[in-house]
């Protein structure tokens, strides 16, 4: 039954589309009905992951499934769908995990949130430690007089070493 539902839905959509095209008077139909180029298809396919093999995007994937997906993308583009609409189409049908760029919803929200929290926590810890260390050494610092000579410790060493060599 579902199949019929889908066919029916598509037919209505097609009718609506044709009516619209007719109403608008033919000119935009040329633009919309234009065959999408391979590059257009790849542009969208790149943003989708192969559903069967780990990690590869649909544009680069050699499997039969991905070839079918690319054909489907071509169809949808020819129907005049935008890139975003096509991505939503696949995400709704197969799940959010087919999107190369994880969305900010569901389980995928955590993939964005956790690293940010971790980095903030790291920064916080670092800040705390630095405060503690520098605070404790403030007293010491006060007693240390100018340490100009420390500044270019290294160049001084070069010369020291050299003077030793010449002896």
């Amino acid at each position, binding site marked *: 039954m579902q199949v019929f539902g889908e066919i029916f839905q598509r037919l209505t959509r097609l009718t609506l589309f044709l009516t619209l095209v007719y109403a608008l008077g033919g000119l935009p139909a040329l633009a919309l009905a234009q065959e999408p180029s*391979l590059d257009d298809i790849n542009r969208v396919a790149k943003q989708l992951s192969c559903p069967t093999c780990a990690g*590869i995007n649909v544009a680069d994937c050699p499997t039969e499934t991905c070839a079918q997906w690319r054909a489907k993308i071509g169809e949808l583009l020819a129907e005049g769908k935008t890139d975003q609409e096509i991505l939503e189409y696949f995400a709704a049908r197969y799940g959010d995990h087919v999107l190369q760029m994880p969305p900010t919803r569901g389980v995928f929200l955590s993939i964005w949130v956790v690293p940010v929290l971790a980095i903030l926590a*790291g920064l916080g810890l670092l800040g705390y430690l630095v405060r503690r260390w520098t605070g404790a*050494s403030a007293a010491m610092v006060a007693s240390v007089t100018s340490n100009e000579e420390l500044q270019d410790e290294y160049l001084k060493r*070069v010369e020291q*070493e050299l003077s030793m060599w010449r002896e």
Partner: protein
Amino acid sequence: MMAADLGYVALSLAFVLAISSAVAAWWGERRRAIELILSARNSVLAVAGLLTFAIALELYLLLSSDFRVMYVAQVTNRAMPAFFKLTALWGGQAGSLLFWSWLMSLFAAAAVSGSWRRAQILIPKVIVVTQLTLAFFLSLISGVWALAASPLRAIGLAESASLMAEMETLTPFYQLGFTPADGSGLNPLLRHWGMIIHPPLLYLGFVGFVIPFAFAVAALSTRQTSDVWIRVIRRWTLVAWLFLSMGLLVGMWWAYGVLGWGGYWGWDPVENAALMPWLTGTAFLHSVVIQERRGMFKVWNVVLIMITYSLVIFGTFLTRSGVVSSVHAFAQSGVGPLFLGFVAATFIASVILLFERLDSLRSEHMLDSLMSREAIFLLNNLLFLAIFFVTFWGTIFPVISELLAGQKAIVGPPFFNQVNGPLFALLVLTMGIAPLMPWRRTSLGKLGRLVLWPSVAGLITTLGLLAIPSLRQFAVLPSTQLHMVPVTIFYGLLVFVVVVIGQEFWRGIHARRRTTGETWLRALLNLIGHNRRRYGGYLVHLGVVMIALGVIGTNFFKVETQRNLSKGASFTITSPLTGSYTLTYEGLNLHATAEDVRRTAATLRIAQEGRFVGLIQPSQDFFIPQQQAITVPAMRHSLAEDLYIILAGWEDDGTTATFKVYIEPLVNWLWIGGLVLVLGTAVAVWPARLEEHRTALAARASGQPVAMESS
């Protein structure tokens, strides 16, 4: 079947000896019995000998195509040339675990005998750690776990019992009940010199990092946390890092040249597994310098090397089993749980040890100021760990989402690029500033004077690129406005770093010339020769800048198109840098490149700016025994860019063919930068000359502060 049986015996003996060596070293240290420790050391050497023998046997079996041995049948076939048969040693799981163990045994033997005098007090625990690690790997490939099958079955754990029984097939000497007529042969993708040297390099890096970890544990447990262990591991760490870096670079090179998708890094779990220990290892490499110079961050260094060790074990496992791609595959083999168990056990044990010894890790100095090299190194460490965490999180996310939400969610490259990209940019900034920051503290004025020229150069670069379109063309920035601002800022950063490095060299040379009147070249060579680690490090940084340039070029300015051409037809693709390429499809031909390989090659004429420059042949190889087709990309290299073409498909008679064409701006700077990085590291690890040791000794004897010890 003599050889395979002997192999079994050698592996089992090595396993027993490794454990007994660890036990002897442990007891010898407790009882202060030097004979026991000596015996432990001899066992370490014997294990290395036994494993060398096992490797020789395995190579013999591979060469003689003894297909009764399961591993030989899995990774070779009769048609393969002898050279590939030898390299098939690391072409499969069992063989690579054997190879790993062999390297581990050699490193352990070298570390123990090499540091015998210098760090005698640490040796027993180094033996314990290295031999236990080795024993774990040997337990996997010597079939020891199969012994656990019947006790497990006796207590009613039938499932675990059968998993353990299967472990027997993981030994590289496992014999089938029959002799197959031919083997299945090595995966065609691996028949490339990049894939031949990539695993050994990676494993050398992995195994190398076990040694610093062993010394760290030894130092902690004996409370010898002063700088002895830091000095001993210095070269080990650098060597491990060198091999790991080379392994990563060669892996990228192979992916770019063989996999045929126009990229070199896909953030897949196996790549990440090798990158993660590199990130924490690089952080360790930097922060350990602070402990050497200022006696600070001792706890932090121990934590870093512990994480690196765990990641090395985890990485070895991941590169060989691909657990992340499926939790189910993980549960279906006995190796996964054993590996994770080992990683968890060693990590927990070392954390406990760390907490027990916290009192001996007091910092000798405080952080004097935020305007110091110590502080900037802290920032560098934070960034490395942040990148590590993002990578780790993205890598294990599929497992987490499958466990929590029942949906296996693999994370694609856009996530990693989006989050890690800016972090890497910040890292480049710290890389630029760090050499200008003196130890302890500096004043704004001092820093300002040093930063002045690099900043001016960087700013001019960024502003110039933003303002003048013709400059952009020169710097491979195409007309697209999309990433203009971040990318020009990054270009500015790169120029900043290069000028900082140049300025450091200039200051050193200038100082030498002022005191000695040496020629420029002489001064430069002496400068590097006497401070290998410092100036080798600068060379490495220069390499990193070049690599960054390649990464920017390929990430932001890649041009690609896919075309279906009929014979004689042509199309034009425009490069952001060198104008336009016109490609004309000339035809298709089929020929044999090897006994079992048929190649379909398309010929294209290339015209650059309308002028004929050459022919190019993207092709596809079909491997008959495996029934597997592999695309062979064709490339036209230049310093500015690569023209990279893949034959994606064709009509049988060759009347039409489909091509994917990429223009990869600046990609070759990635490989050149890699070479510079390797060269710089080699300069840093090269042994110091004897006379320098004498100078240092003389300085120490005369009560002067010890001059910077090179390497």
